[in-house]
């Protein structure tokens, strides 16, 4: 850039910044300053986000969220219920069905015991299913919540509820709120990255990482393991990096002429965005290239370069947080264990999904720990709701399966700021309702924001006449899980 352009840029930026900062003094709350002054795309560190300083000292700086789309059955994985064994095959007590609405169960369903064994792990003695042997090895890192509950019992609304605080479409997702509030920590990579495995996107589609009414720059960027890792990242055939550099130079030089002529600061911003785009063309493929990992690491994760798998995504998640990507969201499809056929039953599909995910998740936790990243990275594992204590038996199916169940489910967190080797809350003997320390979806969100240094009631955005926030109008911090 020549000095004249530089001067123009300076004067515009300064003028605009001063103007806004002057207004801030007036005490206008909730204004999205980041999108006005500092937020020039996710590559900037100079003005990180709305909150120049967090509300509290953050315990976690990054989040990896592992979502098992379809919702795994808690009875098979994290919440052992011996009473189910005794009642297996019996018609369930009527209080389980009185006034209840089910997605698929009809008539009077029968109790279904888990066919899998649980055993105590680690010093904490946390009971974990035989389906998750690798996770058992890191039980002492986990903060298991057996008392999650939700309002929603269909996939799309339930997923939206967890990630946007509302079961309806149109609200910003958690990753968007966080990056909007906290900004990005990396010059060359998106602050909010999404990785999908199981060959399907989640039920609620891209809205679970959408930016809603927040500026679209805060939406999650889906990085893909085949084709361009980010859409349109690759140059067209015949254009190599040198040629792209020359063309971007030419675009920028012509835009500078236009900026001087038209005096529009937005033109200067565009010049920067083209620069970032060019840098991403190198940095994104690099971070997405797991073949740079040692054979040992690959083996620990069960990752194979070039494949599309949950294991690869776990390894990518570590590579991304290592580069200080703020929020990494993994979706793995295939956990909707209804038991209509072997592809969605407890005996075939569930063990298969566990095999695909158990080792990589344990490897991820160990790897983060070994690299000193687990202390300030929050890892979250969850589905969108629980599953019934009863066998679904849809249309008389002989395969074992469980229907959707909103009243209780299990999830766990690990790392930045949560208790280790801890079990929070409990369900009744049938694993049907919560009997101790219930945690609602908004409570979980409030707690995650808290761990990131944010007061969930104070991260708000004015839209259509009211101040919106991730936790809508409720949400209470769950102190019991904080380290």
């Amino acid at each position: 850039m020549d000095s004249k352009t530089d001067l123009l840029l300076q004067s515009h930026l300064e003028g605009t910044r001063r103007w806004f900062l002057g207004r801030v003094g007036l005490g206008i709350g909730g204004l999205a300053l980041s999108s006005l002054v500092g937020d020039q795309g996710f590559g900037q560190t100079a003005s990180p986000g709305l909150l120049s300083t967090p509300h509290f000292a953050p315990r976690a700086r990054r989040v990896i969220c592992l979502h098992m789309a379809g919702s795994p059955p808690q009875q098979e994985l994290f919440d052992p219920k011996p009473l189910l064994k005794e009642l297996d095959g019996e018609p369930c007590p009527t209080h389980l069905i009185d006034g209840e609405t089910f997605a698929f169960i009809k008539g009077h369903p029968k109790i279904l015991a888990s066919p899998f064994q649980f055993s105590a792990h680690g010093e904490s003695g946390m009971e974990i299913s035989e389906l998750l042997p690798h996770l058992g090895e890191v039980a002492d890192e986990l903060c298991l919540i057996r008392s999650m509950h939700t309002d929603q019992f269909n996939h799309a609304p339930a997923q939206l509820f967890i990630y946007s605080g509302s079961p309806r479409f149109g609200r910003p997702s958690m990753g968007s709120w966080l990056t909007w509030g906290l900004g990005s920590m990396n010059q060359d990579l998106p602050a909010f990255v999404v990785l999908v495995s199981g060959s399907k996107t989640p039920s609620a589609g891209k809205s679970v990482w959408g930016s809603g009414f927040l500026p679209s720059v805060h939406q999650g960027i889906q990085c893909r393991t085949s084709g361009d890792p980010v859409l349109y990242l690759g140059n067209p055939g015949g254009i190599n990096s040198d040629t792209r550099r020359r063309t971007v130079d030419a675009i920028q030089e012509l835009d500078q002429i236009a900026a001087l002529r038209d005096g529009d600061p937005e033109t200067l911003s565009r010049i920067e965005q083209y620069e970032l785009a060019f840098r991403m063309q190198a940095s994104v493929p690099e971070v997405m290239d797991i073949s740079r990992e040692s054979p040992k690491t690959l083996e620990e994760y069960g990752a194979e370069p070039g494949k599309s798998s949950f294991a690869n995504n776990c390894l990518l998640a570590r590579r991304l947080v290592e580069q200080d990507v703020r929020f990494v969201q993994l979706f793995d499809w295939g956990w909707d264990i209804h038991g209509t056929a072997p592809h969605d039953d407890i005996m075939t599909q569930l063990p298969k999904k566990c095999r695909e995910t158990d080792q990589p998740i344990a490897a991820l936790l160990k790897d983060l720990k070994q690299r000193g990243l687990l202390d300030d990275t929050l890892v979250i594992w969850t589905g969108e709701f629980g599953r019934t204590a009863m066998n679904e038996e849809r249309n008389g199916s002989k395969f074992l399966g469980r229907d959707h169940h909103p009243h209780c489910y299990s999830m766990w967190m690990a790392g930045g700021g949560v208790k280790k080797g801890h079990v929070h809350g409990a369900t009744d003997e049938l694993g049907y309702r919560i009997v101790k320390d219930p945690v609602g979806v908004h409570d979980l969100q409030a707690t995650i924001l808290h761990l990131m240094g944010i007061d969930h009631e104070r991260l708000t955005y004015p839209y259509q006449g009211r101040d919106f926030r991730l936790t809508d109008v409720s949400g209470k911090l769950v102190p019991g899980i904080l380290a």
Partner: protein
Amino acid sequence: MLIPTVAGLSLLISSSLLPESIDTPDFTSEVRPILSRQCLPCHGPDAATRKKDLRLDMKDQLLGVIDAGSAESSPLFQRISSEDPELRMPPPDHAKALSNQEISILKQWIDAGAAWEEHWAFIPPVMPAAEWNTQQHPIDVFIEKKITASGLSANGPASAEVLIRRLSLDLIGLPPDPERVSRFIEEYSRDPAATWKLLIEELLASESFGERWASAWLDLARYADTKGYEQDGMRNIWPWRDWVIQAFDRDLPFDQFTILQLAGDLIDTPNESSRLATAFHRNTMTNDEGGTQNEEFRVAAVVDRVNTTMLVWQGLTAGCAQCHDHKYDPLSQVEYYQLYDFFNQSEDADLNSEAPLLKVLGNAEKLLLGDAHQQVEKAQEVLDQAARALVISDPEAAPAEAGALEEIAFSGKMPALCQTQVDGKKSEWPWVQAPPDAPEEIHRVIRQSAPEGQTRQVFFERSLHTHVAAQGDRYHIDARIVEPPEWMLLQVRLADPTVWEHRGYWGTGTFAHGVDGTESLLFQGELPTTGDWVHLVIDAESIGIESGKIVTGIAMTQQGGVIEWGGVRRESSQPTERDDLFSFSAFVDRWGEDPSDLFEPRIRQAIGAIHNKTDDEFDLETWWKQQISIEGRRLLIAQQQLLDQAMKRQVEVEAMAVSVPVMAQLATEKLRSTHLLRRGSYLSPGDPVAADIPQFLPAIDEASARNRLALARWLVSPRNPLTARVHVNRVWEQLFGTGLVETLEDFGTQGALPSHPQLLDWLALTWQQEDGWSHKELLRRIVTSDTYRRSSRRTPLQQRIDPDNRLLSHATRVRLPAELVRDQALAIGGILSPKKFGPSVYPPQPDGVWQVVYNGSGWKESQGEDRVRRSLYTFFRRTAPYPSMLTFDAPTRDVCTPRRIRTNTPLQALVVLNDPVYIEAAAGLARWSLAGSNDLTRAIQRAFQRATCRQATPQELKLLMDLTDQQKQVFQLDPASAHSFLESGRWTLEESQNPIDAATLMVIANVLLNLDEVLVRG
């Protein structure tokens, strides 16, 4: 640096711009925002959270805690300024104290007499006094007044190049082509005013006009081609999108546009078009997921209709009141469900079928149907003519009677549609006059000679007439052997797969076809004697012609020798019904229905009599047998077949109708009882409510029924203070980048104040009263102002004083909306398809974008021109919208989106740099620029001009030439890259074109399409 566009911001700007007096704070712009923000959460419209039953949003109650003229003695001021935590408002444990500045504003306002004003948007607009002369445009007078007051000065008009591009993009969403630009510049230099007006009229009348304005309406209507939610299945609602395009093209006045979309099923004379219009509110989502409660999602759809209607027409955020009284606007939860009742009476119920549905044809299919109608009429006309010409004496054409012989090969009469072949070659029939000694019935014969050892055949590919074989049929052959052949043979063809495999022969030797001794080649006897006429007879069944088979052809074959074949006749043991041609009853069936145009009155009457089974003296059958020639009948039948085809096509086209979900009112006895839903939950109904309008808005006509139609009429009645303001504001935003009220989505008390309230009112009123709600008139009114035509160049002073250009001292540069970014690139590349209307299309998108749970549908890339249609035709899937649209800030269309927030991100750069669509456009631009010449400099100038509508400056040209030189060298060293890049752009060069130059020029075109100046409307 983003242009600030976030809600609430304009409140700041406005408050710095609006106050007319320095000393007395303005209630609307300064006092109310403080009360609203600080006090109303507990002392506002929401009864549930209201403390001490005090409402500070209501005049009487507010003034009740104020001593007008004395802040010190006003309880309100005492409380907000108190140091005592027990007294201070807001309570210290609840919120921070008011700032000193806020307290000071309230004090000054009370001291000055506490003048109250209703919220501006709920007061009907008032026509401002005319402060302009006939030479002035009122818009300019309103705008310039404020510019002058701010100490800024307004820019002069933009250059002609900028103006034509601006107006084209704004009015039709496409850039002007270079020839039009040149002509405009030339004419504009001579007579700017007249030339500008001409251009406006040309664009308003353009075929592309409706597409551009429909595109903006689709966000409001949350239009998508899928149902949403998890399954996100397909939905046929694109005919409604085409309805909107046509409505804008035809300039349907906005009041009608409103009534038809909200209540086209309830108007006095609903028709297909008005019912189709109601699909507006069927763009709500439908949940197909197994096990969902239909009622839950029906309620969600009704709620969405209330919220959307209030947003689109009233600029109000009613949605808040779904769960509780509105916190800021005077809308109670009861009133919300009164509005809800208007929409709660339609048939739809979140069914997977999406019923009720309306079957409609797309516009293209309507044209096809018109064509089909024409074809039918034409065929009918030709048929009529043929029928009139067909009465030809033809006494020989008699039907078969039992025992009689009928000609099935030839008798000297050539059937009209017969074809003949001899030895596989078409040739003239070797007819000769029948010799005197021939049997009586024989008039002409075919004399066929074959060289020794060779075969000759006379084929009647179609028998003289097609007939159905009956039991006991025999074939009679008359022939005379002139020179003996080795053998002679009759072959019969059936209409089934055995075709010709039915033969009887006389003589010795073998034929190349058939199996000797079977029905495919059956010995009939020794050769007859030479020289005499002989009569040979074959039993039809012996060669496999079973009863019921349809005989379609006859052949007479010989090896060697010379034979005079005299014909083949069929002897049937019983009279037979034959096909249409020979069946009298078939004739009557076919022509009896409506013989009026076909025959002379006497015959018409007779046909009618037969058909109606009444006796008539006239013997129609005799007439038919004797008077209508076989040839004539054939013509008639052939024409009838054409007519049948045309009618079949008509039916086919009619079957292309798609079923569009529409609104339909429940029958009176089925009307739902509407209840307030506690916390918005359909499982918690509260008190019953009946349709009505919230109190703070003008009342609905008492006399009218309380249905959607009444609501729609109320929205566009002159009494409604909001509808016109909200819509002119929306149009203003499209033309200036920011609305006069920046928060398009909120005209309530939390929304931004208008930057130019009088201008807004003037526009709203003139639009209703003088322009008759005409969208085109409104546009004409705005774009004829000087304000619209100003240059967009911004001075540092303007930037400092008014960085958002709310004063409009210059034109605002606006990044094009997502659809236009792509459409413009296709247009500049010369590859944009002009095809309008029809089902949504699937332009190329990267693999893997569509991976939707439980829905196997894939993205089947469109072929041909459907790849490059305008973006509003791109298939819109709610869970996976077209990625580049999202990147450029298009919403996902789950709910009504009144305003897009523009961003500027690296992902946008990646799209325009690398998306194959833009590479193809670059190739198109390069190809056009070369235009048969090899002069690269000239081509670059042409490309630059086409992309920007202006000439490149020497500095810009040099920059591009430098890049050209460098890039040429790169491609020369690596020609494979050049070819590969051309391939990326799907550019197949002509032989005379140099690939290095072409690829280099494509690189330049790629640069041009990415320029800020191109992506932005200047």
